[in-house]
């Protein structure tokens, strides 16, 4: 079934719900309606996950059929997805029908496969971050990049915790940088992000931005 809402109707619904949710933040009597909408949104988001997974499967099946050069990855993804789904369903049956310990196999998959992979990826991320900070002067040789590079260097040196290498002065500089310029800069960026967030929200409430195909 293909349900197609025309643009004016979907826009009116989006604007109406948006205004009620916004009003709920400021007017206490509208708060309960805001919660109803937010709860509905959460349920829809959970359903969207199922839709997203079905979409993911269909995309990778299409890639497999089309002889894509990355079709090997698609095959691995589909097999992993089906195996994990099978493990989850088996665990659910065992837990709810036979009263066995909670999700033992699912926990095993997460502890022994998912977690080690994500942890090793995190370690690679740390190396990549250091590489990016070190190579910034190669990419952009301006005053901001130079300041960025030397601040990173000072913070790293000031954070050294091995006793022979610790220098009290560098520790003091590090603390000052973190307490004064870094905190001030972070607050400035947060204010900018807050202003941008409000502007985006207002544009959607005015119907100028319609990220729902309306």
């Amino acid at each position, binding site marked *: 079934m293909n349900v197609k809402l025309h643009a004016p109707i979907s826009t009116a619904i989006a604007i109406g719900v948006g205004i009620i949710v916004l009003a709920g*933040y400021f007017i206490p009597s509208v708060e309960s309606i805001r919660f109803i909408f937010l709860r509905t949104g959460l349920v829809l988001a959970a359903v969207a996950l199922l839709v997203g997974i079905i979409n993911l499967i269909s995309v990778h099946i299409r890639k497999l059929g089309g002889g894509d050069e990355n079709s090997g990855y698609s095959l691995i993804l589909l097999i992993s997805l089906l195996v994990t789904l099978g493990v989850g369903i088996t665990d659910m049956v065992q837990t709810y029908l036979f009263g066995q310990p909670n999700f033992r196999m699912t926990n095993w998959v997460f502890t022994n496969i998912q977690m080690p992979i994500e942890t090793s990826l995190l370690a690679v991320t740390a190396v990549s971050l250091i*590489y990016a900070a070190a190579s910034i002067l190669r990419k952009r040789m301006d005053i901001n990049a130079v300041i960025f590079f030397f601040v990173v260097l000072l913070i790293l040196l000031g954070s050294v915790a091995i006793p022979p290498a610790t220098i009290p002065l560098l520790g003091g500089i590090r603390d000052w940088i973190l307490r004064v310029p870094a905190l001030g800069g972070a607050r400035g960026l*947060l204010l900018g*992000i807050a202003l941008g967030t409000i502007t985006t929200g207002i544009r959607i409430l005015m119907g100028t931005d319609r990220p729902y195909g309306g």
Partner: protein
Amino acid sequence: MSATGFTGIVVIVLFVGLIVFFSIIHKDRKHIPIRPIPAYQKIIEEINVAVEDGTQLHISLGRGGIIGPESAAGLAGLSLLKQVIEKSSICDHPPVASTGNPVLSILAQDTIRSTSKAISVAEQLRHPSGELIGVTPFSYAAGTLTIIRDEKVSANVHTGWFGNEIIWLTTAGERQSSPTIAGTAQLPAQAIIYASASDPLIGEELYAGGAYLGAGKVHEASISAQDVMRWIIIFLILGSALLNLFGINTFLEEILAGSM
């Protein structure tokens, strides 16, 4: 209604009033003057390159959903996606999108479908990109790498909610020698983007895509309104510092505490 609630309503009404005001006073102008942002200039350049070379742009929208503080970043990314599709309608290969959130994935596909239909691009109507790549930070980053490494992709635009995993995407773009334009609302990730992306979007620049890519006068007016609000905040901060200097330091605190 509390004083905080009242202040919130005043801010929203002031914002809307300023947007309407700037739209009206500049109604005879083609464009409202706004400061240039190099990253958006680069996007326009890359769209032109894609048209000439028969390549395509990759737009990754991050992992943010639409319920929570990350929603605005995701919605700003969708707005940018719409503008890029419209601008690259004569490309042989329309832009490809990727997301790490199911709701955003549905919205991205809807945006691609509706925009492509409006400009009569048939390929995106059949199989719109914007699929859900992965729901955890690293699965999303690892899945997106295959798109970045695609030879057809000439530039990467990462706008949305990203964490530290953004370093994978920006360095992959660098290794492919393709320009990377990136922006996010998360502060640590912004520092990473500044260090690793060729064209970073800092702070509120992330939300200004529509104004710089020709989404219309209201978008440009909203940027002017944002600038006015920024000056008001600067004066409030300086004013409160002066009040503090003179020992009258409880005025703003009482407003924020709701006991005006």
